[in-house]
């Protein structure tokens, strides 16, 4: 019985072949110094990229034939793209917010959006929990460990108000 071709793995293998080929060319583009034709800094990159191209081709071949040699059960099908998207958005949101609204707000947003991706419906409670966790982490890191985290305009304003009040 001919097994069905495994297209996701075929694509993954193809991406590895192409990426490794490109990176191999990058390594070749650096002209070697005379003393290190054999041994220089390009030897290992070329070996690794060559190896990756072979492995990628092997994956493509195995996927084409449908011989995946999986011993474990395949993971259950993806049925929650909304969740995947939200987890990705959570990280993006952190990157956008951290240098504008500051570390605490960005971390709280990351927490709340991740929680909602995993099915939480209680937005307000999540935001509160996120703020509390992020605030604690901020205090511990900034004052306990001396790591410099961006306070951010809004948070700095609130802290200043609290300090003044």
């Amino acid at each position, binding site marked *: 019985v001919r097994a069905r071709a495994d297209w*996701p*793995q075929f694509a*993954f293998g193809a991406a*590895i072949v192409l990426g490794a080929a490109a*990176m191999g060319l*990058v*390594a070749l583009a650096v002209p070697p110094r005379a003393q*290190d034709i*054999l*041994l*220089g800094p390009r*030897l*290992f*990159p070329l070996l*690794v*990229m060559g*190896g*990756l191209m072979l*492995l990628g081709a*092997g*994956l493509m071949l*195995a996927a084409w034939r449908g011989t*995946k*040699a*999986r*011993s474990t059960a*395949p*993971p*259950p099908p*993806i*049925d*929650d*793209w909304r*969740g*995947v998207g*939200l*987890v990705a958005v959570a*990280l993006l949101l*952190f*990157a956008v917010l*951290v240098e504008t609204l500051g*570390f605490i707000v960005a*971390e709280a947003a*990351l*927490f709340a959006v*991740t929680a*909602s991706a*995993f*099915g*939480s419906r209680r937005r307000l409670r*999540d935001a509160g*929990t*996120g703020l509390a966790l992020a605030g604690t*982490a901020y205090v511990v*890191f900034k004052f306990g*460990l001396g*790591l*410099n*985290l*961006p306070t951010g305009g809004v948070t700095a304003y609130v802290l200043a108000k609290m300090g003044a009040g």
Partner: protein
Amino acid sequence: MEAIEFLLQGFTVALQPMNLFWAFVGVTLGTLVGILPGIGPALTIALLLPVTYKLDAVGAFVIFGGIYYGAMYGSSTTAILIKTPGETGSIVTTLDGPAMAARGRASAALATAAIGSFVAGMIGTALLVLLAPEVVKLALMFGAADYFALMCVAFVAVSSLLGSSLLRGLTSLFLGLAAGLVGIDQLSGSARYSFGTLELLDGFGLIVVVVGLFAFGEALYLVASKELRREEVMALAGPARMTREEFSRSWRPWLRGSFIGFPLGALPAGGTELPTFISYQVERRLSANPAEFGHGAIEGVAGPEAANNSAVAGVMVPLLTLGLPTSATAAIMLAAFQQYGIQPGPLLFSSNPELVWGVIASLFVGNAMLLVLNLPLAGLWAKLLHIPRPMLYGGIMLFAVLGVYGVNRSLFDVAVLGAFGVLGFLMRRLDFPVAPVIVGMILGPLAEVQFRRAIQISQGDLSVFYTRPIAVTLFIVALAALIGPTLLRRRSQKRGG
């Protein structure tokens, strides 16, 4: 015996109040992350690196050792009560542990796992004490070519034994090797794959990659299928304990598991997963009632849970004596040593005995603490499983991103974290093992240095790799590990079909 003498000196370090405290911190944290699904010892130690940097090296490694041991204890609780392995070393426990819990014997399953872990941890650490000085003597004879050959053995073992096929394991390993190439080449000083950016000159940050693969990638993987997020916590009341009959069925599997786990962990055989599978098979074969396996046989919990703990002790042998990591967690511990400017290896035993033996002694101490933490308090720890998943994964992401961004305040790092997260997600979906990526990334640059140093010493003569007896032996071992499993698989397939 000189090993015993060194160990006694180690205890004078391990029993100092501060180090006792750090051991307690480590084992508590280890049990915690072992129980919590989605966060394991590798990720935890990586996240702690910037924090522990403030400690002395002994304190830091006492914590790390405690985390590694503790995670093996904690993961059994998750495997038994929610049928999800807390760590890969407890996958096998999900076969019989939950079945015991369904029969109302959850506390017995937890007890046999905890006591088995204790017995195995003690035996494994004792074997570590006896074996390490011998390996050190051997390792002192190693030249650069031999080290390179040894690393090849580790590469092959990690990729052929973890994961479902050699092709997948090797692909993971090579992706890690490729990631390890980025940055300044140690020997020539030339920049590789930095594309003119300052950020890439130092290479990918280890914490960034680990968090990407193990926290973000894992979150993406788990959120994708509703089936992976089911949560059904089985009932457990009070402490873990078992009947006399259950005890008498357990003690032999504990001992067998201990002696299966240690050598497989000590050989560069890729950590804790494989020994648990072997232990399970052995117990089933030896059982008078093999049909019970899969339906709540206590031997199926006792053996593997012992095996994974003694495997952890075994993993410490190549890590401490050769500087050779054979699991993702060990690879991160190696990076931690480098952070302190310490190179683990045979010389470490003579240059810094109080560190090596202090850490080894504290593994005994931590193991004793873990028994106390996990037997009477099993019910308390089990409550952690009731943390709602949205809160748990929100919290993991919060701390993971804190660990990445807090160190360098670099949005570039966050982008790299995202990229490795997507890679981790794809790899998990397509059934590639993730641990070889970490081992390849850490060990790759070291292997390259040894390779080029060997050729420099021999002045360009490649014969160093096939004339030195140690190197040749190791290459043969690597070759055997490369093709052996494939041949065996073929043979068993032929016989089966």
